[in-house]
């Protein structure tokens, strides 16, 4: 029962030293010494030990953290939607379900004979069992999730199995080394399911991966991507750099219930949830915010590194700029290195990789009624005017119903349509055509017929416009290119009317 005696112990110790003491994940670790797994529980924990054993083998690679992502080989396979992989997954799940059954049996047995053991031991055992349950269920869930084509689509680069690895890692409260072992998750799968991959192939993977990532990096780097102020100038070395793996970053939940496996985004929510599992979780100590371990090393400022090699936020970058919090890491990674899979349901054009960004956008989508001639929209009038005051040649764009100017109010039109109406021709062409047509104007002003229908008063059109005032409304891109051409033009009226009075 002494954790120190276990072979994988050193590894765990290292992981905990790297994890921040204030990290919520830490609680799980302290309550579930990993060395227990091998001793107490049979089937799944054997596997686990194998995993960690192989992981130890893998750590022979000199600097493991320089290989941030190890799963691209599987990514490639899965992106093709390989049915054989799917079969593997299914059989893996089958096995897991069996394990789960065993475990539940075990729990049932324990319940029958608890009295012989001291209280402390009983609770410890319970905790162990529940932890194991959790891990199995998590594996099941994520493997099952990988079967869904849509899920794989949203997680293109990430893979299902690494995800498990990541989640497991988080479950244990470990950070970099555990999760970053190339194929720690894969191993899990390999052990349980059919052995698809050789170690040799795995060793090749990271290199390919790096190359690919560097290629991506070039286009990402130009983007401004930070949650943190650029201005923070901490001297290198004055802070501790932590680097989470992408699996951890992309995991939907970071806190898992050790009993039922339910995931939570916040530790507080988990603690609230735990109350339902028994009175022992209702004590003030259990509900209290986990405290930092008193004996931990002297306080160092913690900063985070993005696992994406070549990224400015990656610690190996020449001009490395650390991220301040885990949340920053998450948002940064999603925004910069992931697909923008959330599409605004209103405009169907804006895409986001962070759900919160989408929600913020949706709140204001369509309300950006303050439009500049350059095509930029603003939700606030003062912002538009600030923009115009700043830039030469930009001018407020008047929505179409205003340009009609007649006594009759035009019906409200969609804003995007207005854009295209407003900027329908270049300035030069307008003046020339306008002139020609004016010269052609004959004397039919004040036609008495008009008098009785004030609607037609604005109908006189000065020619030239007709050719231009029918922009491709349906093509918003096209109208935008007009916008970008810079000169503000004034669209006289809707086309129907102009034709009626064409001179």
């Amino acid at each position, binding site marked *: 029962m002494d954790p120190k005696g276990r072979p994988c112990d050193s590894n765990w110790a290292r992981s905990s030293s790297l994890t921040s003491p204030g990290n919520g994940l830490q609680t799980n670790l302290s309550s579930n010494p990993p060395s227990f797994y091998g001793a107490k529980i049979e089937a799944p924990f054997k596997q686990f030990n194998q995993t960690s054993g192989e992981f130890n083998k893998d750590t022979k690679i000199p600097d493991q953290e320089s290989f941030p992502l190890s799963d691209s080989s599987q990514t490639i396979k899965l992106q093709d939607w390989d049915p054989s992989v799917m079969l593997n997954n299914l059989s893996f799940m089958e096995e897991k379900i069996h394990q789960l059954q065993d475990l539940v049996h075990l729990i049932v047995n324990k319940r029958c004979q608890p009295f012989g053991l001291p209280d402390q031991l009983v609770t410890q055992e319970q905790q162990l069992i529940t932890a194991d349950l959790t891990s199995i269920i998590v594996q099941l869930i994520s493997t099952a999730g990988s079967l869904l084509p849509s899920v794989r689509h949203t997680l293109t680069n990430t893979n299902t199995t690494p995800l498990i690895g990541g989640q497991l890692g988080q479950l244990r409260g470990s950070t970099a080394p555990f999760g970053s072992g190339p194929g720690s998750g894969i191993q899990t799968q390999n052990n349980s399911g059919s052995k698809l991959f050789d170690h040799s192939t795995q060793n090749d993977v990271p290199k390919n991966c790096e190359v690919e990532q560097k290629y991506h990096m070039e286009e990402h780097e130009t983007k401004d991507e930070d949650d943190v102020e650029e201005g923070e100038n901490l001297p290198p070395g004055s802070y501790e750099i932590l680097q989470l793996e992408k699996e951890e970053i992309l995991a939907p939940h970071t806190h898992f219930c050790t009993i039922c496996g339910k995931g939570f985004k916040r530790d507080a929510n988990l603690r609230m949830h735990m109350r339902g599992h028994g009175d022992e979780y209702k004590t003030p100590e259990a509900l209290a915010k986990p405290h930092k371990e008193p004996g931990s090393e002297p306080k160092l400022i913690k900063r985070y590194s993005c696992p994406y090699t070549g990224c400015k936020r990656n610690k190996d970058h020449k001009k490395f700029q650390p991220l301040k919090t885990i949340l920053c890491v998450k948002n940064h990674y999603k925004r910069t290195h992931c697909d923008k899979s959330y599409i605004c349901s209103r405009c169907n054009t804006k895409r986001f990789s962070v759900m919160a960004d989408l929600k913020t956008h949706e709140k204001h989508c369509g309300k950006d009624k303050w439009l500049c001639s350059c095509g930029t929209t603003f939700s606030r*009038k*003062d912002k538009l*005017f600030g923009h*115009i*005051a700043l830039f030469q*040649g*930009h*001018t*407020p764009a*008047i929505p*179409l119903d*205003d*340009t*009609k*100017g*007649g*006594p009759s109010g035009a019906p409200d039109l969609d804003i995007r349509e207005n854009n295209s109406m407003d900027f329908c021709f270049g300035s030069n062409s*307008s*003046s020339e055509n*306008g*002139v020609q*047509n*004016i*010269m052609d*104007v004959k*004397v*039919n*002003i*004040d036609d008495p017929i*008009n*008098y*009785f229908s*004030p609607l037609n*008063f*604005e109908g*006189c*059109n*000065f020619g030239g416009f007709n050719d231009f005032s029918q922009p491709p409304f349906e093509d918003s891109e096209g109208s935008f290119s007009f916008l970008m051409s810079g000169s*503000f033009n*004034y669209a*006289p*009226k809707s086309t129907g009317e102009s034709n009626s009075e064409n*001179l």
Partner: protein
Amino acid sequence: MLKKQKLLKTQQQQRNKNNPFEVLSEELVFTILDFLEGDPLAKKSFSLVCKSFYFVEAKHRRALTPLRTDHLPAILNRYSSVANLDLTLCPRVSDNSLALVAGACRNTLRRVDLSRSKFFGGNGLLSLGVNCCNLVELDLSNATELRDGAVAAVARARNLEKLWLARCKLVTDMGIGCIAVGCRKLRLICLKWCVGVGDLGVELVAIKCKELRTLDLSYLPITEKCLSSIFKLQHLEDLVLEGCYGIDDDSLDDDVFKQGCKTLKKLDISGCQNISHVGLSKLTSISGSIEQLILADGSPVTHALADGLKELSLLQSIILDGCLVTSSGLRAIGNLCISLRELSLSKCMGVTDEALSFLVLKHRDLRKLDITCCRKITDVAIASIANSCINLTSLRMESCILVPREAFVLIGQKCHYLEELDLTDNEIDDEGLKSISRCSRLSSLKVGICLNITDRGLAYVGMCCSKLKELDLYRSTGITDLGISAVCRGCPDLEMINTAYCTSITDSSLFSLSKCSNLKTLEIRGCLLVTSIGLAAIAMNCKQLNRLDIKKCYNIDDSGMIPLAHFSQNLRQINLSYSSVTDVGLLSLASISCLQSFTMLHLQGLVPGGLAAALLACGGLIKVKLHLSLRSQLPEALIRHVEARGCVFEWRDKVFQAELDPKCWKLQLEDLMQ
């Protein structure tokens, strides 16, 4: 064929010899024509002399004031170099007309006035803006239907320097923003009553149009936010913030005007009730070169407020109309180290003899003084004014009721340079008028409701004030034909005369007035003895008459209208209420092409059919005042039609009023005032 050509040539040569003007160069003729400026009839007759004169005159003409847009193609064809186009007489100016104008006067047009026109929109303005590259002045006042889109079209006129948008209520910040970006050369912009424009629009104008000299922001819902940008303008000279309630003392922070506005010459914060002496002193402290300060209807004029003016070493004019004035405040103004040229205390409560005397003693160089309705002042103050301010050119002292008749003699004795004198509702008598007649430069004299004056006094004025242009005798019932004829004899330049309710006036007055060929405004309301014959004389001789009020002239009937219709082709406004004119006379008036405004209440002989015909016949109507009862009798379609041509109907529901005798009327007036 050849023979024929030869013949033509010799004929031409002969003609050249016969016509001395053929040797004159065009430039010389133009110079001659320049002297005819201001005399349209002379120009017309010049152009009718011969073909070449016709063309020369057409080429020379720079300003046009067309009556109807129908004729625009023809006149634009004739006058090729029009720079100034005044369309205020055309009630309906369509976009087509403007496009026509823009096409015809592309490079020459510099100024367009649309301040009273309707029915033009963005398209017309766009064609003006795009084609007329030399357009520098555009008046769009009262275009209440104009929206942002149309204003954005105006912004295409890149060279615009002056733009009036008063009462364009539908224009918002967006439209003004377009103007600010488009018309960078603006020197003047008037946004009075553009209630849709706020801080953002004004601020953008101030940021983008660096050349601004004059900025009128009256009655805009603006706050201090835009002020800092305004005060950064390098050339701003005239700032009008009348009725801007959003600006108050607290908002006038020191950091708002770090720069200060060194060039500001005129500041108008009248009606800004939230700016007290505190705010004013902040404003004055940063703009030291102010020459004119308008504080009408503002906070009380106290010692503190006057103290705030100490910094203004160039101050020449203070307008305090309608303010509550304290004696200490007036004294403090008197103690300012400057010499005021103009002071207005019109309708100020609290102006006393003592304070006013002190003030005028210090500002001996006053040229204009307005003490209208300062009801506390007496002959003491008037004596001080007369003794101190002998250079006065304008004195307005309507309804200074405590001033006795002797005081006016003093004014005439001392102030010889008076050009404008308003003595309405005062105790002045013939002796006073006799004294005032020494002011030989007098051009405007208002002696309405002066019941003590008679023909004798007016005769002195007529003998000496030969430059008189404006004479108001409203309800001065002591005046008869003799007085009028004396004035007409002595003052040939008379342009405006009001003899309303001078009940002794007869046709012979009108005969004498018909000698004044420059007469433009004639008001003979309630002159019961005047008939159509007198009016006919006026019509035949006063060709420039453009405003005529014959309300309650019961003896004027259709026979007066026919000569009017025939001769007074410049008549724009007529009031026919209570007269005996019928629809026959009305219809004949329709031949006056520039007639714009009718008022016809309680016209006994008017039948709806005749009125309808007259309304249809007068194409240029802008405003018609009619009795409400007529509305239901006119066809709805006709009303809509006339309205569509640009005419506004005002339906009045006044009861028929019998005439009161003048004394009784004055008593009633005094009752009303108390």
